[in-house]
């Protein structure tokens, strides 16, 4: 029982990280329809930011975290400016920015791999390692509550929803589309960065950590559905539980457990592409 509970807590904590990455996707997909695979690389950039500020310069955790997140807002905004806005303004379809962002993914990763040594780099825990899981869970819950309140209760959040439902109508109602897009990318980068920073102490900052996170986060998103914010968290939790319980209890070699999220992704794409939660009408 003790064992089971510990496993449940650790699955919840990693589910929270997947949920954050899924939320980052969701923030960008809802208003723009753009699937940005670079979120994994953004998480990686934030993890390296954590290494530089918290390990090398030994800043206090809240300050370091604040700087990293502010930097991520900037990264997201700049990415949108360079790789998305020119294409949207040219009237290119949704595929062109998705491909351009794949280019950004590769460029981001290579810049990091040029600038840092290739070994995994340590990032410190925010609180004592024993309580770190609860810290991750708490922060994630706070972010999700904030995101939920934002979408449900604020005019700004409603304008996001309006753009998601009908771009043209939203623009005609006086919503500034390019501002919404810029904001969604900045927010997505910050949320992805938070996920990267939270997971970094456990897995260390490494330049190849992005793609697996991107796939796990996306799987969480597909499971939960892109319609609702809570779906991202639910998807993340389900995925993490499935993953960790297969590793622990299923009689298959550990390597195969890496295949669990991928199988989940394929099954859900095929059986239930709208996700578990339906979008609200």
């Amino acid at each position: 029982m003790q064992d089971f509970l510990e496993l449940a807590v650790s699955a919840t904590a990693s589910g929270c990280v997947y949920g954050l990455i899924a939320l980052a996707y969701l923030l960008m997909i809802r208003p723009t329809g753009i699937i940005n695979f670079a979120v994994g690389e953004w998480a990686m950039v934030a993890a390296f930011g954590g290494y530089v500020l918290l390990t090398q310069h030994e800043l206090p955790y809240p300050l370091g975290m604040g700087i990293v997140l502010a930097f991520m807002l900037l990264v997201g905004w700049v990415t949108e400016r360079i790789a998305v806005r020119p294409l949207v303004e040219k009237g290119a379809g949704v595929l062109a920015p998705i491909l351009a962002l794949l280019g950004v993914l590769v460029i981001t990763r290579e810049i990091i791999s040029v600038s840092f040594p290739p070994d995994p780099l340590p990032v410190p825990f925010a609180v004592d390692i024993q309580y770190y899981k609860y810290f991750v869970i708490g922060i994630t819950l706070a972010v999700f509550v904030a995101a939920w309140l934002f979408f449900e209760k604020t005019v700004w959040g409603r304008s996001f929803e309006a753009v998601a439902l009908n771009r043209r109508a939203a623009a005609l109602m006086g919503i500034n589309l390019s501002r919404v897009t810029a904001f969604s990318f900045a927010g997505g980068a910050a949320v992805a960065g938070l996920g990267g920073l939270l997971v970094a102490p456990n897995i260390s900052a490494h330049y190849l950590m992005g793609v697996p996170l991107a796939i796990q986060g996306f799987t969480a998103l597909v499971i939960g559905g892109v319609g609702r914010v809570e779906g991202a968290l639910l998807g993340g939790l389900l995925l993490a539980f499935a993953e960790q319980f297969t590793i622990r209890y299923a009689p298959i070699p550990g390597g195969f457990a890496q295949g669990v999220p991928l199988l989940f992704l394929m099954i859900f794409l095929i059986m239930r592409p709208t996700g578990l939660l339906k979008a609200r009408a």
Partner: protein
Amino acid sequence: MRWLGAFLVLSGAAFLLGDYHNDVYRKMLLWVTLALGYNFLFGICGQVSFSHFAFYGIGAYSVVILLFQLHVPLPLAILLGVAVCIVVALAVAIPATRLEGFYLALATLALAQLFVVLLNEGGDITGGTGGIANYRLPAMLGLQIRGPWYTGVIVFLLLLTLWVLVKLDRSWFGRACRAVRDNPEAAAAMGIDVARTRVAAFTLTSALAGVAGMVYAFVDNTVNPPIFGLENAFLLLFMVIVGGSGRHAGAVIGAVLLFLLPFWLSPLVGHHHVLVFGVLMLAAILLQPKGLIGLWDQCRHRFSR
């Protein structure tokens, strides 16, 4: 006649090259073959797939496993390998293409990753992380094909692929693919079965990639998981976009350029040529969506006026 000439020139070139350059040349030809197939899928039919390289791997692994672990004769092994590719392709494409949007890309991304996981964990069957090595192409009709002669096989494969794709592109099927890419609703209204066209294009190009993989298996006489990872699937996409998607010549230019670029760049940037690829790809999408071939067209247009 032109095809025969191209065959003689391209395979003749192999006899003029040394061992090392011959090796580079063959791999370049294989990349061009893959890029041509991928171009048909992505550029002409408008489907983003990340599994093209996985099918290359499925072809390579299945022929090696069939030949050397199940001791199937070569012609049968080739047919079975193609069959494996087709079955896997259909299993992914039929459900994925029913859905609108980007789902094929995601399903194939999962497939590509899953394939590498299976290779790594396959134990004795796939040789695990080390892959399978130390085998040789079985003799056919008492002949052992090797060295530059094997390059001839690759050239034959390349030209066969190109021939099939050009014929298809000019047929009703190619036009249906382009129609599906540009406007699926309009295509459906014209009586084209959109889902079936997508599935057919995906399965066909995946099978072609599988055949290329079988040929690849005897280039280095080793197959191992890292070769068939996601990195190369990205590279393939970059090649087609940088060269000019939707055009056979574009795919050839992109593949040759991005394949040779690391050799020229390595004195300057070492192993960081992927950074240059990313920049090129981004520049292509932002500045010249038709790629290098589009740039060439523009130049020609300007001078001919």
